[in-house]
């Protein structure tokens, strides 16, 4: 879907992106992670040509982005950033409708889509559509920003640390919303963050960028089990990487079907981290597991600690 082909970018004499090649598949939630200055934001911004590349090419569906009309290209790509950048003189509904309006959707179509997005992003309290951005909380503003990025059903959405400035609870709830929306819509999302936990929680695949190069690309588990270099291992957290793994793996992977246990059940699609938290809270070393509200098996502490084969 998106292909970086030997891309380089120089800012003020230093190579921010250094001969980088990468493919992002259709429908993937792909996370670019790395420390500040690693070039991840710059790389993201080459996709919608906010940053022109110095060498190499960025292709979408095989077509070099520089051959596309720049406004048409951008209208087909959603964009959300940490500082949100909402238009202060426009209402929530008008902000969300920005791209549909640019694309010339009719009023009814636009209204229906705005309603739908307000619901999807849990912005459906009464009167929300007609409020102005300065009357919203940070989390609500960010939800509007995400809704605006998704409005015209773009095939690709770019997000640059969109949840970076939010408190942990709000961030988690937004991550959850995003994951659900992405799964349901099949949108390709390229997501930039410096937070490893966020990268592993969200990403179908993750690329770790160091000094303008891809240090490793793969699934979160691949990072944890087979770090490509000592630097990657350091980044993933060394010994503590095993803790991260708990957040990535699901109860489904270790459930013992048919067994039973006492205590409050955990959901089969919960993370092992959630299961461990429930065990700690309840003081049990085993808990029942439920699927669709029905107990289907049990999970044991030993299974969480054991290295996956």
């Amino acid at each position: 879907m998106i292909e970086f082909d030997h891309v380089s970018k120089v800012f003020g004499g230093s190579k921010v992106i250094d001969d980088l090649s990468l493919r992002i598949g259709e429908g993937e939630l792909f996370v670019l992670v790395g420390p500040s200055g690693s070039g991840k934001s710059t790389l993201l911004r080459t996709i919608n040509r906010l940053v022109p590349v110095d060498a190499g090419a960025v292709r979408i569906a095989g077509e070099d982005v520089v051959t596309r009309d720049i406004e048409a290209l951008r209208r087909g790509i959603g964009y959300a950033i940490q500082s949100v950048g909402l238009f202060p003189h426009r209402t929530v509904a008008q902000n969300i409708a920005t791209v549909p309006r640019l694309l010339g959707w009719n009023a009814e179509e636009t209204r229906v889509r705005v309603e739908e997005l307000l619901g999807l992003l849990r912005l459906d309290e009464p009167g929300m559509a007609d409020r102005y951005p300065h009357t919203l909380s940070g989390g609500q503003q960010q939800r509007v920003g995400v809704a605006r990025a998704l409005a015209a059903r773009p095939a690709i959405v770019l997000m640059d640390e969109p949840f970076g400035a939010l408190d942990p609870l709000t961030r988690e709830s937004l991550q959850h919303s995003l994951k659900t929306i992405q799964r349901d819509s099949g949108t390709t999302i390229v997501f930039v963050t410096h937070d490893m936990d966020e990268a592993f929680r969200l990403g179908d695949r993750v690329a770790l960028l160091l000094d303008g190069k891809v240090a490793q690309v793969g699934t979160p588990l691949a990072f944890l089990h087979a770090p490509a270099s000592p630097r990657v291992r350091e980044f993933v957290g060394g010994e503590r990487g095993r803790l991260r793994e708990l957040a990535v793996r699901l109860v489904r992977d270790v459930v013992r079907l048919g067994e039973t246990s006492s205590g409050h059940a955990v959901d089969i699609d919960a993370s092992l981290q959630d299961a461990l938290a429930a065990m700690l809270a309840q003081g049990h070393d085993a808990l029942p597991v439920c699927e669709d509200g029905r107990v289907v098996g049990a999970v044991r502490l030993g299974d969480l600690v054991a290295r996956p084969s």
Partner: protein
Amino acid sequence: MTTQRRSLPAIVLGTAGLCAALFAVFLRVAPNRLLSGQPHESHGVVFGLAWLGVILAGWFGLRGRAPLLAVVAVAALVALPVVAGFDARAALEHAPASARAQPGAGFWIMWMTAALLLLDALRGMRALVQVIAWVAVLAALIVAAWQGAFEPLAVVREYRAQHASFDDAFLVHLRLVGVTFMAALLIGAPMGWWAWRARRGGGIVVGTLSFLQTVPSLALFALLIGPFAWLAAHIPALASLGFGGTGAAPAIVALVLYALLPVVRYTMAGLDAVPFDTREAAQALGMNRWQVLAQVQLPLGWPVLLSGLRIVAVQTIGLAAVATLIGAGGLGRFVFLGIGQGAIDMVLLGTLAIIALALLVDLLFQGLLALAERRP
């Protein structure tokens, strides 16, 4: 009830007003329009009581002092000329027809002081309230004028004697200002946009305009006579349009040159008023340059530009007075002719008209600004 701190402005202004009421001449009567007048008895001293009240209010700090002072100031602004007109009528009753009754220094000081007091009292109040207060003063003065309250005053008599040429001059003045304003906006706003986009080039534009601003207005008017005379002599089409070394054309060019700096500056400031992220988001969502300008930069930067246009309008009204010296006409004619003839009433007539026009236009822009800045 002393709930507020002392108000230094109220105390100072009250004291100035009180001194003017007690010691300065409120009304002078002269045998004709060219001789200077002698002090005449009047009711000016009565205003001393109001000023005493202002001082006390400023000193002891009553609850709701600001609105109270505003009301006193509005009342004084209206009552002072009405009382002066009343006293003038009495003074002229048994005088020859050529006699003139002029408000004296005491009147002018108190009127100015009342205006300053109103400005101070309105500070911090909502823009709408401020506009309403000034409109109330204006409306009351117009009603009083309608009723003939100011007819006996020398300035009004001067107007009655010259109203045909005054009305002409007023229209000419308005036209000078209007054309200059539109031209400055049409040239300056795109120039400001360009200067804002091309940072380095922008420095040159602003530098050049700043330099022009330092040329004395009279000198600039005079300097333009030469080139314009040459143009008119060599391009007959221009000459047939009334274009020449003197007259409206060079005057308007000079006025536009002065107006460009504020227009360009405030256009740039207005564009800067839009946060970078908002502008980048607009671009990233696929707006082209013109859509960003029309849908984001203009609506967000408009109040800043408007406050610049307010300065331009008021500045041009004042500067246009000098344009009369190169034959462009306007209200400045009365000022300079009056000085030449030693007819102080005529100078005053021109000056008051210019000030009134400037205040009126300023008020208009304040109203527009209040509308533009109304938070949704």
